[in-house]
């Protein structure tokens, strides 16, 4: 069973992302959610995550801080990461790609954007 961690300070955004994923074939997956980077790190250490999807602009620990922590951790750095943000622009995209982000999606999220992202970066095998 795959587990997807969705990180966003907005409950609405987390709900929309989960609904989009369920619509494209992830309905049977486990979803867990976190409201900021600190909560996400705690959940990442508790269980195996197949895909991390995070916002950038969050309180306590923002998306860049979370991603740097994940990508510098020997136990977590293999986890594929999607960023879904309203802040994405080419300059920030370069920084995120250097950190190791697999896919950057501009808000608002949609099922098609997530499907394209998963197929392009993780392959169709991601869908069980």
């Amino acid at each position, binding site marked *: 069973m795959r587990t997807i961690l969705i990180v966003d300070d907005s409950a609405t955004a987390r709900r929309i992302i989960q609904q989009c994923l369920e619509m494209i074939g992830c309905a049977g997956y486990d979803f867990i959610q976190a409201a900021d980077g600190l909560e996400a790190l705690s959940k990442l250490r508790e269980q195996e995550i197949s895909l991390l999807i995070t916002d950038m602009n*969050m309180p306590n620990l923002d998306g860049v801080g979370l991603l740097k922590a994940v990508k510098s951790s020997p136990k977590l750095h293999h986890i594929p990461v999607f960023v879904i943000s309203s802040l994405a622009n080419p*300059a920030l995209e370069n920084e995120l790609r250097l950190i190791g982000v697999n896919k950057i999606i501009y808000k*608002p999220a949609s099922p098609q954007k997530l499907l394209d992202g998963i197929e392009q970066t993780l392959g169709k095998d991601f869908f069980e």
Partner: protein
Amino acid sequence: MIPFPGPTEEIIHQALTDAFENLVFEEVVLAGVIQNHIPEIFLDGWWASIQMISPLPWGHITILVPNNLMNRFTEAILGLIDEQPDEAQNADNLGELLNTLCGRLMSLRSSPDRTFRIGLPEVGHGMAPEMSGPYRCIDCLVGEDHVFLLAPEAFWDDVIWQLDLNNC
């Protein structure tokens, strides 16, 4: 007399359309621009505000939404049927709507190589916080309801957007 709609209003309309059509499935029509004033028809409702931090800390962008329309937005976003939206749902949804809108505004207004940063949304009900300097109030129609978007005057200043602020 301010030419309306000018290129900046067209950017604002594009950003509003992207955010509203995707999140709340509503069309937006620009009705006018008012300087340094919020029309009295906005007597009571929801507001959300986000600080623009970089490339220039030039103030806040604020959105004002009447109560009945905010409830409709939340019903659309959450797919509520026979259920009245609660205050926490409205607050979270308006914050996310403005966050998405500000990201689109900055992307459309900035050059592609410019990094920008915005703050976290503050949301409330009732009187919106006062703008810290000169601003324009964009009057938008969503169906028959008015939504107002307040943006600092500097948002219209092309010179500011052309400066190499990343190196300041």
